[in-house]
């Protein structure tokens, strides 16, 4: 009975987190951010926060075809599923933007994009705790951002202040690659485990 319970819990986890576990999309996003923002920091003689933001937007535009292709790959390989509609998403996005804008306006030392990076740290820690032990590796994203912040002038480190945002974007992008790959591997492993556990008990 306990084995069945565990099997069903795994099915429920997989069904509830299916879209989040399509990790190749996150890995591609991370790779694009790393390449574009990293390229900008390496080639621009005097990188700025604004330039880093533009590089980030360019990375997002570049990855659109890849995301569409990966969406088709996941649909055909693992099947389609629609999430329950979330009632709080819109309220959260609006609320967060108001808070971020107010913070940026009131505290000039916080670079544009800083609150978003804070959200990435909090969000990744929350994911690591919520899906522990399956997705504990999300703590690595938070660690990478905090380490990158500590390395910049705003965090008391040796890197120049104009590198703060670019370095943080680079850290986020680079940490998304392994985390996305691990999510994808978790999806494949859970699918294999749940489907392998069923057939012996499943005659109609």
């Amino acid at each position: 009975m306990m084995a069945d319970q565990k099997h069903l819990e795994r099915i429920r986890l997989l069904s509830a987190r299916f879209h989040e576990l399509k990790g190749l999309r996150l890995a591609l996003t991370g790779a694009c951010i790393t390449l574009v923002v990293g390229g900008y920091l390496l080639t621009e003689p005097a990188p700025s926060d604004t330039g880093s933001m533009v590089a980030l937007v360019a990375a997002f535009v570049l990855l659109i075809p890849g995301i569409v292709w990966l969406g088709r790959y996941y649909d055909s390989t693992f099947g389609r599923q629609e999430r329950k509609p979330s009632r709080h998403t819109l309220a959260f996005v609006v609320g967060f933007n108001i808070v971020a804008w107010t913070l940026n306006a009131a505290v000039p030392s916080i670079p544009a994009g800083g609150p978003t990076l804070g959200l990435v740290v909090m969000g990744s820690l929350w994911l690591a705790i919520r899906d522990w032990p399956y997705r504990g590796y999300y703590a690595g994203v938070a660690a990478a951002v905090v380490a990158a912040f500590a390395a910049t002038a705003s965090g008391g480190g040796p890197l120049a202040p104009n590198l703060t945002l670019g370095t943080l974007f680079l850290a986020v992008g680079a940490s998304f690659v392994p985390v996305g790959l691990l999510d994808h591997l978790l999806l494949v492993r859970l699918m294999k485990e749940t489907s392998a556990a069923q057939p012996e008990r499943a005659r109609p």
Partner: protein
Amino acid sequence: MPTPFETLASFDRLIHEPARLAILTALSACEKADFVFLRNLTGLTKGNLSSHLGKLEVGGLVAIEKTFAGKHPITYVALTGEGRDVLKAYWKRFDKVREGLRRLKPLRAE
């Protein structure tokens, strides 16, 4: 008061069957899922899955919707309101049985 074993025996076979319970559990965590997703998740063959879904549909626990994505036919399956209520009630009873079994004392040889 029924014993845990009597309660267990009185469970509705439509839900209590492992493959159908797996299908319902998967559907309870999402809005709707297609046939390929359910087949991957449960490891059932096409025929077995169709048969189980047919029984669940006749029982009013799931709704099946056939549609197209471009030229590809897709079969979506979703839990009905009744299906959600029945599954919730099932887990409530199941937890009670588990609690009852935990309270049972093992027999000692005299």
